């Protein structure tokens, strides 16, 4: 592999709230096309770390590099500009609107000519574009005109993921942060999401996946990082570890790799 800067690199990230050290000197990297799992018990700091990556929290110390460039995110939209998209647990879909509208909101295609100046949207072109994008992701959906509220939980998750995936801008593929994407899903739906995540990684998107779901993590992640009480206690390729080890790190029964 050529020497390419990782898509997202965090070095020595600290997050202090008074005396509480929510994050203590965390190093974290994820490369293009890589899926890294971020595991840990409640309160371990995974959500906080994810929020630091998404620009929602500013760390008290440490550095963030995106594609090798140092960045300071003042707000989530700054992170979005840098190519980082976060998919929140609540999905943030507009229920009453259909799939095409949800996928295209914020980057609507206008009609050509005077109608376009008035702001008329080219629904057909949008639907087409969305279909193409979803096809690239290997997703076969219900019709573009199906309202999102009429989709099942798994289908909604897929739409939310696809929406973020399509928004990642720039010639170099961006970074996707997923916060518990399968928390509310059943088995089959989790499979669907899993497949989509792998496909997105295949297309070069860097993915950070916070989850409690160990089977999902082991199935879909290339690497797994474990946090415990704000410290990183493990960072291993998935193939090099197993369920027991991971559980041990998460609960603290197993000593940190970096101790």
């Amino acid at each position, binding site marked *: 592999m050529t020497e390419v800067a990782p898509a997202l690199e965090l070095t020595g990230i600290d997050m202090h709230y008074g005396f509480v050290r929510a994050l203590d000197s965390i190093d974290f990297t994820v490369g293009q096309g890589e899926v890294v799992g971020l595991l840990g018990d409640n309160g371990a700091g995974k959500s906080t770390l994810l929020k630091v990556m998404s620009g929602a929290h500013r760390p008290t110390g440490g550095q963030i590099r995106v594609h090798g460039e140092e960045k300071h995110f003042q707000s989530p939209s700054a992170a979005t500009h840098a190519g980082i998209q976060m998919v929140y647990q609540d*999905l943030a879909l507009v229920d009453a*609107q259909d799939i095409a509208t949800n996928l295209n909101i*914020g980057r609507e295609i206008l009609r050509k000519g005077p109608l376009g100046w008035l*702001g008329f949207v080219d629904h057909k072109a949008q639907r087409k574009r969305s279909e193409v994008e979803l*096809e690239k992701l290997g997703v076969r959906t219900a*019709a573009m005109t199906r309202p999102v509220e009429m989709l*099942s939980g798994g289908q909604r998750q897929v739409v939310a993921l696809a929406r973020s995936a399509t928004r990642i801008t720039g010639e170099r593929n961006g970074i996707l942060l997923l916060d518990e994407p399968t928390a509310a899903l059943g088995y089959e739906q989790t499979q669907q999401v899993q*497949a989509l995540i792998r496909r997105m990684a295949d297309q070069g998107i860097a993915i950070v996946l916070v989850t409690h779901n160990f089977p999902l993590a082991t199935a879909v992640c290339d690497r797994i990082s474990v946090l415990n009480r704000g410290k990183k206690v493990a960072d291993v390729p998935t193939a090099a570890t197993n369920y027991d080890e991971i559980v041990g790190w998460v609960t603290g029964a197993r000593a940190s790799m970096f101790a």
Partner: protein
Amino acid sequence: MSMTVPHETNEAVAPAQAGATAPVPPARPEGDPTGIRALIFIRDRGIFVLWGLLILGFALWANPFFASVTNAVLVANAASLTAIFAAGVAVGIICGALDLSIPGVAALAACTCGWLLENGQPVWVGLVAGMAVGVVVGLANGVISLRGFNPIIVTIGTLSITTAAASILVGGYTVPGLTQLKFMGTQRYLGVPAPVYIAAAVFIVGTVFLTRTRDGLRLMAVGGNAEAVRRSGIHSDRYKVLGFVISASCAALGGLVTTAVVTEASPAASPGIIFTALTAVALAGVSLAGGRGSLPRVLVGALILATIDNGLTIKGIDPYWGTGLTGFLLLASLGLEKWISTTVSNRLVATAQASVHTGTR
């Protein structure tokens, strides 16, 4: 929806064909049971059917006076006033805000126009000023609500302020004799009075705006989930303010048209306006939670109210029966909508579960 996961093949479809949905016409969701389609039809188009039934009923009962072109024009005219206000209320609700300042804005717009006309200004100045009142009050409502205050309370506040302002402007009196406004009041064009054209224009423009333009779509999305829209990089606050501006502008227009019809500007804000407008909006099934709604159905809601009123008056029946009937229809339509939604979701759940066992989709 299915992912063609490499190890499972539900159907012998190669991955390359996985994305093809082209054969399915976009309007028909694939594989929805006809039961669901019928229920959704009733939910979305039922109000038209209801109106048709009412017309039929009155035509027979109030024969021969009801079923005539002149009467149809009369009903359309009566509905127009309510419809204009209802459009404003509907847009406000769709955008997530119940705008209670509408009667006050109508009164202030009417009095502004009346006062200007009384003082010798040309008609277009009066009209522009009246509409400007709507825009300004809408902006005020929007900006103040953005600061975190409950929009209902804010609009109640602006209601008081606009009513007082209207009264102060015209010194407490009405401004009669505004015959120069007849061209948009009782004047008929091709046999149809002006307010009908105005209301039709409002609804056509409004519907096209909400369903086909970028800003209209974003407006509806903000009403549905403002946070989601914001995360897509859009300033959803601007659209919230836009919702208030549209609502107040419709109120101003309604006030001006009412003034034109009676050739008199009155500072008395009629709270009944909100009641009838809300009833029309509720009949049309616009959810108070925001984010969804169909303007054409609101128009039909206004038409239903006017039809009932007209039919009962022709028969010499006290219109309070009409109010009662409307209330009953409203409750019935709420119940029907609830029942349909539950049934549809139940059936959808059933079909989703079916895929596990039957392997379809």
